[in-house]
């Protein structure tokens, strides 16, 4: 019959195994198997507690940037989309004054929805979905850019809306590049051994 200490140690090791980053699961198995070869109950319990700390350190080491980066990108995406929605709803006269066409508003609105969708997929850690939606946002933004860069638009527009449109499109590209780079990084980093190699010995 197993003692309370051994039962506690086994429970701690199973928690350690769950905490350990996916890319390092074999080390959790190594620690768990090693535990079975320890004779003293006190030693076994102390070893298991150490393994819990080791797993936690590895989790922090591998994944410490992940939540900060993910929430940072989500905040940018949601913030930018919310700002555009606020501007379009709170001061429609301003948009009218800038004589934005219906097409422009449709493109800006669609891009906002795309950014919101990308943010939601990012929160759910659905990396391929996030990238697909971001690519769709890029298409919308590029269409917007081509529209304001077209000869017809320049001829009918005045300076202020033109500059404002360019500012919006530039900001869209900036947010898009930020979100795309960050999402790719978050998606690929757990599988890139060379990045982890950069850590100090």
């Amino acid at each position, binding site marked *: 019959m197993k003692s309370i200490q051994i039962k506690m140690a086994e429970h701690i090791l199973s928690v350690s195994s769950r905490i350990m980053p996916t890319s390092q699961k074999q080390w959790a198995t190594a620690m768990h198997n090693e535990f079975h*070869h320890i004779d003293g109950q006190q030693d076994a319990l102390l*070893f298991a*507690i*150490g393994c819990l700390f080791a797993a936690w350190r590895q989790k922090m080491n591998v994944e410490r940037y992940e939540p900060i980066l993910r929430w940072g990108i989500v905040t940018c995406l949601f913030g930018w989309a919310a700002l555009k929605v606020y501007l379009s709803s709170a001061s429609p006269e301003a948009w009218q004054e800038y004589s934005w066409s219906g097409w422009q508003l449709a493109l800006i609105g669609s891009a906002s929805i795309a950014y919101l969708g990308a943010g939601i997929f990012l929160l759910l850690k659905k990396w391929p979905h996030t990238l697909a939606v971001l690519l769709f946002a890029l298409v919308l933004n590029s269409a917007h850019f081509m529209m304001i860069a077209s000869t017809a638009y320049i001829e009918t527009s005045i300076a202020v809306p033109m500059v404002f449109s360019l500012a919006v499109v530039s900001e869209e590209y900036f947010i898009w590049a930020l979100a795309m780079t960050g999402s790719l990084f978050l998606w690929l980093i757990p599988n890139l051994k060379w990045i982890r*190699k950069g850590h100090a010995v």
Partner: protein
Amino acid sequence: MARRRNISKQTRLVLLMLAEAPQTWRYGYEITKMLNIKSGALYPILIRLSEQDYLESEWRDSEKPGLPPRHVYRLSAAGTALARHQANDASLDPLVLPIGAAV
């Protein structure tokens, strides 16, 4: 080969101990006992050394029937060179292996 200066004292101890008998495979628990360090400190060191190709590891069947296989470790050629560099680096504080750690 990377020669890193920012190596912790415990990592240097592990390197020097393993370098004492570079061909000998060691168990994790065995290393904790020989160096008198906790498993919570040892395994992150082993993981980092392994990821940087300074450490070789493999699974060995247990000598005791009914027990799971154990992970064993020894320094790679790069790890041995790093340990030698650490041992000879005059700018670093000299380390003394605990009694029984040297083979």
